[in-house]
C-alpha cells in the first residue's frame, strides 16, 4: 500500500490502518493537528514542470516509463505533459490519495509517483482525478469521503479492471514524515476482496494489503528489491 511502508516491522501498523480505514474520518478534523486542512495550493504544485515529469517517470524502470503517457498536476487538476505509446501512464499523486484517516492526508510535501499499466490507467486514474478535483474544490476530508462513496455507489467511478497494477519504484517518492521513501513496490488492484485472497498480511507473507474505504477496492502490495534506477533498496 502506498501509504504504509511495506516493511515487516510495519505490518502491525498496516493492520491498524486498515481497521481504522473502515471508519469515517471525522476524528481527523482536529484543527490542532498538522495537515488538518488544505495548505495553499502552491505548496502542492511543483514549480518545475520538467522535474515533475522526471519524478513521474522515475516510478518505473526507464524501459517502461520512457514510452508512458505523463500527467502533471496543475492548479486546475492533472493535465497531459507527454503523450505515450505503451499504454502506461505515469503520474505524481498528492497526499489526498492517502487513506482518509491518514494524519498526513493533506501534507503538501508528499510526492507519490506511480506508473499504471493500461488496465490500471483505465480503471484507477479516474479515482485519482476525481479525488483531486474534490480536493481542489476545497472540500473537507469528510466531504471528499462522502462524495467518493456516492460516486462508487452510483457506479460513476469504475472498479479495477482485471490485471490492474502499477509500479511504485521511485527512490524519490516521499510518503511523508512517518514513512519517508518507504520501499519500491508493485501494487495490484481488485474489486473489494478479503485480505486472505492473496495470503496478505500474515506473518512472513510478502504480500501486504490496503483495504480502501469508502472505495470498494482492495490493493495488494509486493515489495521489490530494487529501485527503478536499478540500485538496491534497503534491506527489509
Amino acid at each position, binding site marked *: 500500500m502506498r501509504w504504509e511502508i511495506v516493511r515487516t516491522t510495519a505490518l502491525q501498523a498496516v493492520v491498524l490502518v486498515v481497521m481504522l480505514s473502515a471508519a469515517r474520518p471525522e476524528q481527523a478534523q482536529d484543527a490542532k493537528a498538522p495537515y488538518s486542512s488544505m495548505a495553499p495550493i502552491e505548496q502542492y504544485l511543483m514549480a518545475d514542470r520538467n522535474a515533475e515529469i522526471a519524478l513521474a517517470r522515475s516510478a*518505473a*524502470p*526507464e*524501459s*517502461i516509463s520512457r514510452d508512458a503517457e505523463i500527467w502533471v498536476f496543475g492548479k486546475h487538476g492533472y493535465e497531459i505533459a507527454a503523450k505515450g505509446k*505503451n*499504454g*502506461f501512464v505515469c503520474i505524481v499523486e498528492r497526499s489526498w490519495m492517502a487513506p482518509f484517516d491518514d494524519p498526513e492526508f493533506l501534507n503538501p510535501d508528499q510526492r507519490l509517483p506511480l*506508473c499504471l*499499466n*493500461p*488496465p490500471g490507467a483505465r480503471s484507477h486514474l479516474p479515482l485519482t482525478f476525481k479525488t483531486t478535483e474534490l480536493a481542489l474544490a476545497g472540500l473537507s476530508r469528510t466531504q471528499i469521503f462522502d462524495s467518493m462513496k456516492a460516486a462508487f455507489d452510483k457506479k460513476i467511478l469504475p472498479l479495477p479492471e*482485471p*490485471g490492474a*497494477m502499477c*509500479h511504485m*519504484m521511485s527512490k524519490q517518492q516521499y510518503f511523508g514524515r512517518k514513512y519517508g521513501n518507504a520501499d*519500491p513496490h*508493485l501494487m*495490484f488492484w*481488485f474489486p473489494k*476482496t478479503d485480505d*486472505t*485472497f*492473496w*495470503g496478505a498480511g*500474515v*506473518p*512472513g*507473507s*510478502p*504480500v501486504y494489503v490496503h483495504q480502501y474505504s469508502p472505495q470498494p477496492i482492495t490493493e495488494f502490495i*509486493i*515489495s*521489490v*528489491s*530494487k529501485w*527503478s*534506477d*536499478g540500485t*538496491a533498496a534497503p*534491506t*527489509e
Partner: protein
Amino acid sequence: MAREIVRTNALRSFALVVVLCAAWQAYAQDAKGPYPSMAPLEQYLMADRDAEIALARSAAPEAISRDADVLVLGRHGYETAVKGTNGFVCAVERAWMGPFDGDGADNFWNPKVRGPVCFNPPAARSVLPLTYKRTEMILAGKSKAQIIDVLKAAYEKKELPPLEPGAMSYMMSKDQYLTDNGDHHWVAHLMFYTPLMDGAVWGADLPRSPVMLNPQFSGAPEPIDVFMVPTRRWSDGTAASVM
C-alpha cells in the same frame, strides 16, 4: 512454475521463448539431452510422504501453508494428504509442469525436479486442474504430443475450468529443485496467472523490471500467461538472493 533460471541477462531469451511456444505444436518432440524420455516412475515419487508434505508446505510462509490442503504424488496421481481450512492448496509439482518445448523443455522429464507451490483459492480452482490433468496423462504413459492434443481438446470442450481472476501462487521454498545447475533453486517468487496477453501490459521482461513472464503455459497449449515477481525472502524468512 519457474523451471528456468531467469536472470536479468536472460530476459531477452524469454521473449524468444514465448514466440517459439506459439509455434511448437507442429513439431513438438521430446527434447534431446540428459532427459529425453520419462524415467521409471519411482524416480519421480518421494518415498517419504511426510517429507513431501513438508516440502509442499515450504512453498509459502507457515502462516499460509499450515492451514492449506496438502497434496502428495502417488502412483496414480495426486492425492490429498492433509485437509486444510484456508482454501490454499500446496503441492510439489514435477518437471512435466514446465514448458513442452523451447527454453527449459530439456528438463521436462528430469525426475529430480521438485517444484513446491501453494495456490491461492482461485488458482486452486482454476490452475491446479492443469496439474492434475498433465500428471494424469504422464502417469498414463502419454507422449508430449499426445498430452498437448488432449489439453487442446479439453479446452475446446470446456472440460477445464476457466481461469479465475486473482489466481496466484507462492513459490518461496528454499528447497525447490528446479534445475540441475548451481544450487538447483531459482529465486523465491510469486506467480500470477492471467489470460493470454502481451507481457508488456505488466512491463514484463523489460530491463530492470521486477516482473517476468514465465513460458510455462503461454498458450502452448494452455491459454494462460504466468507472470512472476521475485520476493525478498524465502518462506522461512531468510533473505533470498536478489536479481
